[in-house]
């Protein structure tokens, strides 16, 4: 199986687990998408560091784009890449993040260390 195929499968499995196994329904919640929007930006930066500086390279047979060049950075954008990294990394990252956040909320809902809850930011006074 290619990275592309496994990535699509991983997203599907993560969404199914979130909805029907852990029943956290993160993908239906505003808090998840707000968090993901922040995380995905930093994912692109981090992936860019790994891939742009060629610490990690990819085989063109496994991804939509071509093989990482031997001695230079891959395309910043285009050829199936975004911020140097294969677009497949977005599938990989999404499934990793969704599963982690879903499980974190799952255990909270089950009563595992529900407290201390987060907030408020230090510049804001407590309401309770």
């Amino acid at each position, binding site marked *: 199986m290619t990275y592309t195929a*496994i990535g699509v499968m991983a997203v599907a499995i993560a969404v199914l687990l979130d909805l029907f196994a852990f029943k956290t329904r993160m993908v239906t919640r505003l808090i998840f998408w707000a968090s993901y929007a922040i995380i995905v930006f930093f994912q692109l930066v981090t992936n860019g560091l790994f891939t742009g500086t060629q610490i990690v390279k990819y085989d063109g047979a496994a991804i939509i784009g071509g093989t990482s060049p031997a001695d230079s950075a891959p395309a910043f954008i285009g050829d199936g890449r975004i911020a140097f990294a294969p677009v497949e990394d977005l599938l990989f990252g999404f499934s990793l993040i969704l599963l982690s956040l879903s499980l*974190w909320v799952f*255990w909270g809902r089950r009563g595992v260390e529900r407290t201390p809850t*987060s907030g408020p930011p230090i510049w804001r006074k407590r309401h309770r």
Partner: protein
Amino acid sequence: MDFGRWSYVSVLVFVILGSIWLEVFLRSRVLRRPKRLLLAIGPVLLPFLIWDAYAISQGHWYFDESRILGVYLPANIPLDELLFFIVIPFASILTLEAVRSVKGTRSSRWLVGDESG
């Protein structure tokens, strides 16, 4: 990024530095819930390490061996990768709790069902 063997790990340090301040300034209180953190990160590790092992065995991705620690887990997985699967979920959970810290729990739009009281 060329910090020799520490190059890969230095990217992870960047991720930790970029997110750990949320614990202090936004009071995300993730480190104060270590058991829950372990239960969230632990079970996700295994499937992703299996995926990693398969991808490495098939050559889907490969590493500059001079810029990773050089310590390997079974199935040829660099130790750096294991650290990745701990650091990234940790940073993600910090982010979720930081957003919750800012948004509060008084509006039902932002609830996830684990709120107390």
